[in-house]
């Protein structure tokens, strides 16, 4: 290697280091900071579109998992660092400590979102969501001659003993949506009895929501209770798995957005929120999300191929989000008492 590129590389590194050392992240005009929990790959796609459509707004994004972001926002509450919350679990958004931090805003085009997907007081709205699904490893099913499950009820079959994994609802939003959907669809008493029976087949409760699908994909366990898009992506990666949407109806979670009351650049923050409801954004969501709340969606071919129905609402169990949020502590305490070892 010649000396020159080395020098310029070093120079750039030093310049960058100096800049990031001393330029405290103050809100520059035209710059907004966005906190999100969208998955890395979909986020990259959404941002590319946003850059095209909002050339004069510099969008700085920090992506953390739902729980990490929750903890961070609460810890930063006295001096928030961001202008916008984008695509973050609605059942976390309704935490009163978070709602205190956001400001009501009615973005342009909000009427495209049915009222049940947004806050009555306009504090948040959800353009996308994700739904629960099982990831079933075909190779294991075949090798061990196991039947393909089609429903929650099927998962109780004794031949699945020690072959299931699901997310721990105490640490994973996906885990919580599954538990909530079961308790709501069966009623609490029958719901807990079902979870008791399910526990007998459960090998592990895993901390994260996507991991159960990933370990099933890697053949560590036969069936991972997870969410649909993870399954679809892993199928596209080439893993030998089948996505199963439980016939009783799948639990789901909304991904909500909101404007921070503390924002120093509300004009651009609003512009960005308006964009999240734009046609172009919707087109991107369509490529990546199992649930798009804005009306008139056409399900992409690859989703249909992986096993999603054309009309997603037929596959969903209609979750009562308010109930899910209000009873969270109680349900988790009960769940931990019963199943955490």
């Amino acid at each position, binding site marked *: 290697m010649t000396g020159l590129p080395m020098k310029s590389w070093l120079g750039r590194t030093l310049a960058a280091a100096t800049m990031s050392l001393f330029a405290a992240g103050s809100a520059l005009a035209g710059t907004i900071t966005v906190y999100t929990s969208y998955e890395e790959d979909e986020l990259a796609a959404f941002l590319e579109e946003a850059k095209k459509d909002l050339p004069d707004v510099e969008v700085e994004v*920090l992506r953390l998992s739902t729980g990490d972001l929750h903890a961070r926002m609460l810890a930063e509450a006295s001096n928030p660092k961001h202008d916008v919350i984008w695509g973050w679990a609605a059942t976390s958004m309704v935490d009163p400590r978070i709602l205190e931090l956001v400001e009501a805003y009615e973005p342009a085009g909000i009427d495209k979102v049915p009222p049940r997907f947004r806050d009555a007081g306009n504090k948040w709205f959800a353009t996308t969501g994700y739904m629960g699904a099982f990831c079933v490893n075909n190779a294991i099913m075949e090798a061990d001659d196991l039947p393909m499950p089609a429903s929650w009820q099927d998962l109780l079959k004794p031949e699945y003993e020690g072959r299931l994994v699901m997310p*721990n609802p105490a640490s994973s939003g996906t885990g919580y949506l599954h538990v909530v959907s079961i308790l709501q669809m069966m009623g609490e008493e029958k719901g807990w009895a079902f979870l008791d029976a399910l526990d007998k087949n459960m090998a*592990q409760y895993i901390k994260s929501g996507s991991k159960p699908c990933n370990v099933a994909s890697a053949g560590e366990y036969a069936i991972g209770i997870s969410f649909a898009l993870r399954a679809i992506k892993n199928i596209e990666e080439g893993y030998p798995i089948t996505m199963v949407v439980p016939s009783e109806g799948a639990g789901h979670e909304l991904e909500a957005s909101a404007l921070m009351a503390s924002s120093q650049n509300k004009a651009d923050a609003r512009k960005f929120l308006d964009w999240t409801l734009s046609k172009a954004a919707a087109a991107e969501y369509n490529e990546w999300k199992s649930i798009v709340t804005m009306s008139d969606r056409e399900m992409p071919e690859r989703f249909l191929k992986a096993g999603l129905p054309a009309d997603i609402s037929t596959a969903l169990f209609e979750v009562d989000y308010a109930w899910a949020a209000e009873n969270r502590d109680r349900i988790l305490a009960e769940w931990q008492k019963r199943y955490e070892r």
Partner: protein
Amino acid sequence: MNLSQGGAWRAAADGDRLLLAAVAGGAVLLLVVFVILPLWGILSYSLITPGGLGLGNYARYFGDPRFVSIIGNTFEVSLSVTAATIVLAYGFAYALERTRMPLRPLLRVVALLPIFAPSLVQALGLQFLLGRNGLVNRTFGTELDIYGFWGIFVADLLYAFPHAFLILSTALAVGDQRLYESAEALGASAWRSFRTVTLPATRYGIASATFVVFTIVITDFGNPVVIGGNYSVLAVEIYNQVSGQANFSMGAVIGVLLLFPAALAVVAERWIARHQHAAVGAQSVPLRARPNRRRDLLWLCYCLLVGAAILAVVAVVVYASFVRLWPYNLSLSLRHYAFDVQNGIAPLWTSIQVAFVTAGIAVVVVTLAAYANHQLSEAVKRPLYFLSILPAAVPGMVLGLGYILAFNDPAHPVYAIYDTMLIIAVCNVYHYHAQGFLLATTNMKQISRTFEEASATLGATRLGTLLRVTLPMIWPSVLAIGAFFFMRAMVTLSAVIFLITPSTQLAAVSVLYLDDRGALNQAAAFAVCIMATVIGFLLATQAVLRLAGVRQVSLIR
């Protein structure tokens, strides 16, 4: 001695004392700001209950049998991993420092491999190797199930091994040849001379290593969360409470509970340290191991076995980064090195910058703290010592949250560096302060005071002695400390995850998210980039040392 001479002497002594006080005071002040303040933020959170301030959260904690059993689990796994790590690492370090077996330089690098990678890599590698669908089960048709106690045991053993090895090999590297010659002349067997000379001389190293390993294991989050299955430990329960349920109060309670074992470890460690004597005196004859074919061969077998285990876990991760789709399509491919995350490979460059800044600050901070600790009298140095090693007991997640709680306030002076790379570097320095401090202390302990007393008698000031006597003797270990912090900064995860900003994303966090997303091969590939960077950095530094004419110094000691 005439009067004017005595006056000058006293003035120099006063200046000395002032300097020492300034160094010690500065070290303590920084520790208070960057360790105690954040911890205070956490502690006050643990006292917040719905009904006002009180101990309600603690009562609730101990009233729950599940939490009590988690404490039991935590101790079970931490104590057993510590015991196993110390025994294995002592043997390994002994073989490297006290025998003439071949391959020593290579084995040293192998022993340190786990330190070059984010802790996640151990768990990832173990899953590839020993998972239910791992290489071993697929190859031999066995049905091993690693998830649970044994998963954590093996992963944390590998993870803590290099830390123990570093401290123990430093302790074993020095010794007085005369003692061994006397023992031999007196007809002592090898075992007896080991028991009566080697073991007592390295007691302090063992105590340090035990303490360090125990706290690394008890506060580790990355391994148990991936491979712990249903076996719950405290560090993971903090994550459950904080990130899972946004329940800061309970998270804080557990954080505070984790501090107690550390305090105990400190007491035990002090007790042993008081019986410690400097191993190398001015009249010492440096140790030279003599070849002994049979002994060297036996030790070589042992080291190869341990080395193979360490290597296997890392190698399988490297291998997985080059295959198309683990474990279903093992044809080779480079496609996982085209990172399709939001920022691509950029976080790696950020991490490198952060690592350099971390190492630079840490070398100064830690060496001065250890130096002050070495020079001060027993009673005075206690607070400094305690503060210096306290960070080892603080789980990264607790420290990171504490930083937000303490410093995210425009009125706070530290706020000036909040949201910059500098705060991440500072957080790294204090997160690993204890390990660096103990490395530096172990080293200073083994320099006899005789040298310094001689220097002082010859009229040198403390500063003069520090610069002209102490530093030249310990500078290789100072460099090693810098390298240690560079490595830690490259791979650490739990504390900094709360401090990264859109413009300061780090490589280890990318690995976590790639792994979480299920892109196992890409996660492995990114981890390989991190390991390559760290190893490259060490080799480059080593090369610079060689060019400067220093040949006998092993950088990663």
